[in-house]
C-alpha cells in the first residue's frame, strides 16, 4: 500500500480543486515496426534495450527506476497499480511481452510495449505541469539519444495511432468538481472544452455513472500545436475552472443547507461505517474533500483524504491483505483503514 508521502498526496495552491497532474509521452524506436507488427521476440528486444538505457544512469533521489516484468507480477499487483493511475488497465490485464520501469517514489512510470514502444509518464500532486515537463524532457532526451525515435518533420513523433502523432504528448489534470457537478455545469464545460481541443471524462466510473465528481481533463490534439501552447491553454482553462468551482462551493454552502448537511453526513458515515464499498467511499470522500477545503471538517486534512482515495481500490485492498478476499471482507478492511486514518 502506498503511503501519505506518495505524490498523489502532495498539496499546492490549487489542491482544493486540482488533485493531480500528469504528462504522458508516446514514443517509438526507429529500428522497429510498431507493436501490432512485432513478434514476441522483437518485443522482448525492445524491453531489454529500454531497460539498458537506465542501467548506468541515476535519475536522482528517490527516482531510481525499478524494472518490473509484467508477466512476473501477480494480477492483483498489476491491478492495484492501475487503480493508483501508475499504469493503464489495458497494461494490467494483458501483461504479455510488456514491462514497466517505475521510480521509487512512483512519480515516473515508463510503460514498455503498452500501445507504443514507450509510454513515459510523470505524475505530481496538485497543478504542476511545468515542473513535470522539465523532468520528462530530460528522460525523453536520454531515451532518444540511446534508442533514436521514429520521427517525421511534418508529422512529428510517429505513433501507432493517428490520434497521437505530433508531440505525442497527453497532458492531464484530475479535477474535483463537486459543486460544479451539483449545479449541472459539467456538461456545459465539456462542450466548451471540446471546442478548445480538450476532453473531459470521469475518473472513477464512466459515462453518466461518474463517481465522486472527479474528472480528468486532457488535450485531444497533438499535431499542429506546440507543447507550450498546450500548457498555456490548459493553465488558463484550469485556473478558470478552479475559481468557478471555489465560487460554486461557497455559494452552495451559503444558500443550500442540504449541501452542508450531506458533507457532514458523509464524514459521519466514513468515520463510523463498518463496511464500505469503493464506489460509495469515492462518493463520500468527494463530499468530505469539499468539507475539508471549506473548513467544515477539521478532523482530517487534504493529504489524508487524497491518500485514502488513491489507495483503497479493490485490488489494492487485496494486495494489502496478502490474499484473496470476499467483497464483504474487502469492505470491512477498507472501513477499518479509513477509521485508522481519521
Amino acid at each position, binding site marked *: 500500500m502506498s503511503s501519505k508521502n506518495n505524490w498523489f498526496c502532495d498539496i499546492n495552491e490549487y489542491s482544493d480543486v486540482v488533485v493531480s497532474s500528469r504528462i504522458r509521452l508516446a514514443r517509438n524506436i526507429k529500428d522497429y515496426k510498431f507493436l501490432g*507488427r512485432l513478434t514476441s521476440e522483437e518485443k522482448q528486444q525492445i524491453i531489454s534495450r529500454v531497460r539498458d538505457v537506465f542501467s548506468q544512469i541515476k535519475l536522482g533521489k528517490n527516482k531510481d527506476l525499478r524494472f518490473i516484468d509484467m508477466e512476473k507480477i501477480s494480477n492483483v499487483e498489476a491491478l492495484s497499480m492501475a487503480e493508483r493511475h501508475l499504469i493503464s488497465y489495458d497494461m494490467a490485464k494483458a501483461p504479455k511481452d510488456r514491462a514497466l520501469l517505475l521510480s521509487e517514489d512512483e512519480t515516473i512510470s515508463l510503460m514498455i510495449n503498452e500501445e507504443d514502444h514507450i509510454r513515459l509518464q510523470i505524475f505530481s500532486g496538485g497543478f504542476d505541469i511545468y515542473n513535470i515537463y522539465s523532468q520528462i524532457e530530460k528522460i525523453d532526451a536520454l531515451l532518444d539519444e540511446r534508442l533514436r525515435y521514429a520521427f*517525421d518533420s511534418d508529422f512529428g513523433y510517429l505513433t501507432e*495511432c*493517428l490520434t497521437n502523432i505530433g508531440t505525442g504528448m497527453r497532458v492531464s489534470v484530475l479535477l474535483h468538481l463537486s459543486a460544479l457537478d451539483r449545479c449541472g455545469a459539467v456538461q456545459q464545460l465539456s462542450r466548451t472544452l471540446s471546442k478548445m481541443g480538450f476532453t473531459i471524462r470521469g475518473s472513477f466510473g464512466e459515462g453518466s455513472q461518474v463517481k465522486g465528481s472527479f474528472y480528468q481533463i486532457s488535450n485531444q490534439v497533438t499535431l499542429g500545436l506546440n507543447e507550450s501552447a498546450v500548457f498555456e491553454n490548459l493553465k488558463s482553462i484550469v485556473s478558470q475552472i478552479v475559481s468557478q468551482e471555489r465560487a460554486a462551493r461557497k455559494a452552495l454552502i451559503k444558500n443550500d443547507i442540504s449541501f452542508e448537511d450531506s458533507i457532514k453526513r458523509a464524514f459521519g458515515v466514513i468515520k463510523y461505517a463498518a463496511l464500505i464499498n469503493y464506489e460509495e467511499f469515492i462518493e463520500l470522500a468527494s463530499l468530505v474533500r469539499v468539507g475539508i477545503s471549506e473548513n467544515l471538517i477539521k478532523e482530517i486534512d487534504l493529504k489524508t483524504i487524497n491518500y485514502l482515495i488513491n489507495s483503497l481500490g479493490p485490488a489494492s485492498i487485496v494486495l494489502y491483505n496478502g490474499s484473496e478476499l470476499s467483497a464483504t471482507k474487502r469492505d470491512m478492511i477498507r472501513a477499518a483503514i479509513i477509521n485508522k486514518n481519521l
Partner: protein
Amino acid sequence: MQKLANINFSLDDILGGFISSSNSQSGFKLEKKRCEKCGFTFDDIIRTGKVGCDNCYKQFREMLLPSIKKLHVNTKHIGKSPASALTKVSSRILALKAELEIAVKNQEFEQAARIRDEINALKKAGDFKDE
C-alpha cells in the same frame, strides 16, 4: 452496476472506418501497395485502425493526410524535435529554447537569462542567424 446493452465501440474500429471514409471522400483508390518496412497495405491500416510502422507514414502519406487533417489542428508538427533528428548545435538550441519558455512561464528570470546567454553563445559559435 448493470450495463444497458452490450455495445462496444472500439477506438480501432471507429478509427479504421474514419480513415476509410476520409479517404474515399478525397477520391483516392484503395491500393494493394505494401509498405516496404512492415508489409502493411493501406487496407490493413483501415482494417486495424492502426499504422504498421514509421515507414507507413512515408509510403501512405497522401492517403493518410485527409484523416490527419480531420483529427488535428494542422498537418504540420510545430512542437519539439528529438535531438537524433537534428544536427547537434541546432538541437541544443531548440532544447534550450524550450527550457527558456518554461523558465519564463515559471517566472524564473535568472535561470531564463542564463539560458538566453547560452543560446546566444551557441548561435555565435555556430554562426547561426537568429530567426
